[in-house]
């Protein structure tokens, strides 16, 4: 299992709390780094050089929204290969298509039912932390 931290980009403290709770309930012990807006997320990734196992991105965020963060990540050599999963309430077809266009690795809708949500988070942990091999381009890291 990857020990790298999980970057959770989410402005709503309730959702942060519930997501972290869901990870813990699924026995995911990785550090969860929270960025409350798009700018903070980029700062953590580009300035602080965080190398997460997966970035969970909400779409509606203050300052830079999730899609803009994704676009910047994909444009930067250092963050280009990080797995990015859109985790959002939106069920708009448009959001889904644009996310994949900009290079999202996955698009997941947050269910309202918390038990379903726990299941979703379990699968995220299962796949991105356990099964998936992350390509970290060390040459690109400074």
């Amino acid at each position, binding site marked *: 299992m990857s020990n790298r931290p999980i970057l959770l980009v989410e402005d709503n403290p309730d959702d942060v709390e*519930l997501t972290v709770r869901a990870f813990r309930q699924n026995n995911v012990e990785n550090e969860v780094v929270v960025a409350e807006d798009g700018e903070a997320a980029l700062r953590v990734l580009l300035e602080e050089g965080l190398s997460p196992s997966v970035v969970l991105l909400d779409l509606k965020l203050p300052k830079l929204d999730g899609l803009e963060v994704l676009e910047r990540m994909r444009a930067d050599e250092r963050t280009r290969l990080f797995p990015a999963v859109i985790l959002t309430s939106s069920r708009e077809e448009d959001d889904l298509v644009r996310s994949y266009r900009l290079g999202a690795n996955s698009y997941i809708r947050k269910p309202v039912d918390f038990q379903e949500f726990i299941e979703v988070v379990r699968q995220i942990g299962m796949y991105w932390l356990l099964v998936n091999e992350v390509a970290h381009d060390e040459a690109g890291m400074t």
Partner: protein
Amino acid sequence: MRRLLRSRPLLEVGRAVAEAVAAGSAAVVLLGWLLAVPALEYWIPGRPTMKANSVLAILLLAGALAVRRRRLVSALLASIAGAVALLSLVEIGFGTSLGIDQLLFHERPGAIGTTSPGQMSPVAASTIAVLSVAIVLIGCRSARHVLVGQLVAVLAFLGALTSVLAVAADTSQLLAFGHTTVLSVPTAVALLALALAALLARPDVGVTASLVRRGFDGFVLRASLCAAVVVPIAFGGVREAFRSAGLEATAAEWLYTVLIVAAFGAFAWILARLLGNAISDYTVAAERLHGIVEHSPLAVVTLDPEGDVVSWNPGAEQMLGWRADEVVGRPYPLARGQELAEVRGELAAVAAGRQLLLEQLRHRKDGSEIVVRVAAGPLWAPDGAFAGRSIVLTDITRQREVEAELLRLNEELELRVETRTAELTAANEELRALSYSISHDLRTPLRALDGFSQALLEDYAPLLDAQGSNYLHRIRSASQRMDGLIDDILGLSHVTRVELEWQCVDVSGVARELGDELRRANPGRDVRLEVEDGLEVDADARLLRIALQNLLENAWKFTSRTERAVVEVCAAERDGQRGFSVVDNGVGFSPVGADKLFRPFQRLHGASEFPGNGIGLATVMSIANRHGGTASAESPADGGACFTVTFGGGGGSPLTEAAAEAIA
């Protein structure tokens, strides 16, 4: 002015024939001289020969006419012929020989009717001299010279006619002035033809122009001339016939006079009749024209060549403000101020023979503006000269105003459509933003409600009694219901916004697919679905599917208490629109409040009775409206329900009432 002349080709042919006869006669005689065949020189036995110099002079004159467009050459040829004739006249007059008679050919002495061998007759010489003068003048550029030339040619023609008549009656020796040479047959023929050709050379000018003019005057002139020539000649023949039959000369003379009087009397009577009819026709036509002009609402004006007003009809008085007596005899009053130069230009163009049709802003007598359509054209005098202009003015001020108003209204309408379109686009955009916000923001608190309730249940279970757990479960299920409601509202909003793609949809196939899905989703239910075969409708396939899904789900739901549930899908038609009906044998609904069925969030059954949120039928109505169709429901007294959806042929409005209500 050309149209006043008789057709040119005919005149051209006449002239060419006359020239050919003149030149041909001379040429035949020339051949006789060359080949020494006397018959060709005199044509009729016992008559004098045509002399070589006459042949030469006539050929020169015919040549001069043929090349008359090259003035100098033509004049030179005619002058040589004239010189030969004059020299011959000198010889005849003084009884001497200048040695010119035998220059070309020798004539044997003692030829018939010939005083001096080879010398032309005095008649021939003088006619040729006169003709040469006429042809030189006719070749001139100036119309006046041509006219004089034609008069001289008439003189020559009369001389030639006299000669021909004399020759025909074999009395040409009478014209020989005693001892001199007698006129020959070929010479007489050639001279007459030549004089005719000279007259026809310029049919556009002078005497000939009058003679060949179209119209009544030309006809009268031609008829009179013909009569003046033919009648005396014909009756002259009659007189000679009576005389030779033994009638005394004086009596024959009387008879001749009476015949001439009778003939010309008859001729005058016919002419008077024709003239009377023509004048009467003309008067009627003129009156008719006058009436039209007087009663016309258009301004009809005529101007003389200088631009002064000749006539000014009541229409013009009415339209332009000037009375006829104020403007007749004075310059055209519309040519004033800044319009002067413009009008002058137009008048000049008309004078040049052009027809004008244009629209202009002009000023009335009182200075007010008027927009007129001007139709102006030249008037020609009977002689083809420019006689002035006719001007017809139509007042199109009102028409222009209406056009401008129409244009303005159109622009306004376009602007309004643009504004409305922009408003609609903005409203759609707002709607889209709203759905996005609902989709995202409304769910987040719900998730918190559900999530933290669950957290309480998990982490604080020992502190909660049964009632407390129950409440938390209720909070959770309420959150989840609201989540479903949000989905339905978004679905309805999607239906109102999505762009229609019309195609032929296999309703039977879609209904069977949906039926299978419903059976799988409700394994405990036994519903018999009867679908009519070959049911097809023109609609958007995705929306039709959503509508049919909603109706079938409803049918499934409301037959849940029916023992033998049957749901039927069949073709339907309402107000000429095609569609389908979904009929079930479920609980049906009370007719009271049935009209609310298709409004969003309206339900006729309690939630505990049948679950639902009242969006399904609103979505169905919205889909029908989007297609320009409608949805309706009936429920017979003995239970069951029938829902009918129709699809119009055209595009429905993108924002329907139902949708607007749903958003409000």
